[in-house]
């Protein structure tokens, strides 16, 4: 991907190095719970995420990661508990303007071109024509799809779709970014490139909330929460988790925690 990180800082941050209210809490949840019939997908989740950090929600498939993100965005209604995002009680449509979301699925209109997708989502986030024109070029260059902007998305490779999906979630310069398994099914070089972007965004003051089940990615987060069967088992920095449990790798920490709890 390209190098134009300066464009990726969030709206409210004056300079990319703005350390302003670094300690501000961006996400808070209190007893957040979601049940589907007899199944409890998320169980009494209490979480705090601070501005500008990369927070990883780590767990196996079906642990409740996606359901958590959907509740934080207000796409799903919690059965119990509440969430506060950027100081506003969820659901709140105004606050969604300041949030970017990259769903687990590609979530693109496959029968539109890359450019048409970008314009559509840009307009939905309220970008006007001139803003859109500027952002469109920047973002396409950034995800290296400029050459392909007039190609119908269904002809794209998996990696290209991921890049476009990422671009669509960044268009409106969000302060908070939800990335639901953004690196599943993409090759290692692109994965590395994605991670350098995440880091750069966080440096610019953007809070990144990411889910993954790759442990090597977990160790690149500022803090991680380990989730299993809807329960949050532990929340801390990767290093603290390792030293607390005396384990070499996060994978071992996770396995140890599971055994302890079971």
């Amino acid at each position, binding site marked *: 991907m390209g190098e134009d990180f300066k464009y990726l800082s969030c709206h409210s941050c004056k300079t990319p190095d703005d350390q302003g209210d670094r300690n501000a809490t961006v996400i808070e949840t209190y007893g957040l719970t979601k049940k589907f019939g007899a199944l409890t997908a998320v169980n009494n989740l209490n979480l705090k995420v601070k501005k500008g950090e990369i927070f990883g929600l780590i767990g196996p498939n079906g642990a409740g990661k996606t359901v958590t993100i959907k509740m934080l965005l207000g796409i799903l209604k919690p059965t119990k508990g509440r969430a506060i995002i950027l100081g506003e009680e969820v659901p709140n449509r105004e606050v969604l303007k300041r*949030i970017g979301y990259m769903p687990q699925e590609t979530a693109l209109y496959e*029968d539109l071109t890359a450019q048409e997708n970008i314009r559509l989502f840009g307009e*939905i986030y309220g970008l006007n024509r001139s803003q859109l024109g500027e952002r469109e070029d920047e973002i396409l260059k950034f995800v290296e799809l400029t050459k392909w902007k007039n190609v119908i998305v269904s002809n794209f490779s998996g990696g290209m779709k991921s890049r476009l999906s990422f671009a669509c979630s960044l268009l409106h310069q969000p302060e908070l970014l939800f990335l639901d398994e953004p690196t599943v099914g993409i090759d290692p070089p692109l994965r590395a490139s994605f991670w350098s972007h995440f880091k750069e965004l966080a440096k610019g003051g953007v809070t990144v909330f990411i889910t993954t089940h790759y442990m090597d990615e977990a160790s690149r987060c500022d803090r991680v929460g380990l989730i299993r069967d809807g329960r949050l088992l532990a929340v801390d920095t990767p290093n603290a988790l390792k030293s607390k449990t005396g384990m070499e790798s996060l994978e071992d920490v996770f396995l140890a925690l599971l055994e302890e709890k079971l």
Partner: protein
Amino acid sequence: MKRSLTITKGVLRRIRHDKRTMALIVFVPLIIMFIFGYSFGGEVSDVKVIVVNHDEGFGEENLAEKIIRNLDTETLAPEYSNDEMWARESVKKGEAWALIFFPSNFTKDAFSALIGGADNLSAIKIILDGSDPTIATAVVKAVHEAITETMKEKGVEMPVSTNMEYIYGEGAEFIDFLAPGVMGMVVMMISLLLTIVSFVRERTTGTLNRLLASPITEAEIVIGYALAFALISLIQSSIVLGVAILIFNISVHGSILLTFSIIVLSAIGFQGLGILLSTAAKTEFQAVQFVPLLFMPSILLAGVLWPLEAIPSFIRPISFVIPLKYIADALRSVMIRGWGVERLLLNLTILLAFAIGTVAASIMLMKRRE
């Protein structure tokens, strides 16, 4: 509202990129118009007519009574009255298909013609709503058969004729009856099919999640879709109307604007229904299966290809819960009878309720977020 337009543009663009769907939108109305344009409706029954008999007879004889007794009551459902003006008005209002009128000197004229030297030809007057040619033909045929039957009983050939007067649809052919029905049918098919498929796709590909996580409201999404399908339906009905007028020479007696308004209301109603149905399907394949399920009863029972009178009477009540019946009725009344809004209040109210109801329900369903 601006965001709704974004959704509208998106829907239309996606269709434009999809050549097969584009072809569907254009060719389905063409094909249906041509296939059915050359075919005919079936036998009808229980056609509501009003019989007004003013015949004073001649001596002991009253020919009119005999002819009336010989009317085929399976085809016709006659109602008897003495009030010609009221009966005429009923036909005008669409409450009866025809008025069969016997003048006061009917028998007398027939007898004097028989003796020879008849000045006045004895004639039954049939005042017809010809907006449905199948029915009009059936009424005239039933009267002629009753005359033939009566003459056979009498054993003489009486010079009795019929005089036709059309209140609506003079010279209307099957194609005139068909064109409005086909318009409604095509709009139903495309709006329903395309909304179900695109909405299931919005759900399965995750684009709906992206939209729900954005500042756009549920109402803006649904309205965006509704606008797209309103536009598509206008294009389609213009195609049907164009073929009907240019190739089949039908004439439109009522307002084109009203015709298009009915089409747009229908399209909005069916796209709302499509969104509702899409929630009951997990894949596009499942979704498409809904279409024949809704479509078959609609074509068969809504009076699109043949009049309701051609449907067995015990099934007929089902027709009254099929939206397409009200659409076909309304379009036919505007195009053939030339009716305006004031005579279509019932149909328009039902269609408005259908459109608002399905749109509101689909917005509400999307808001539940379970």
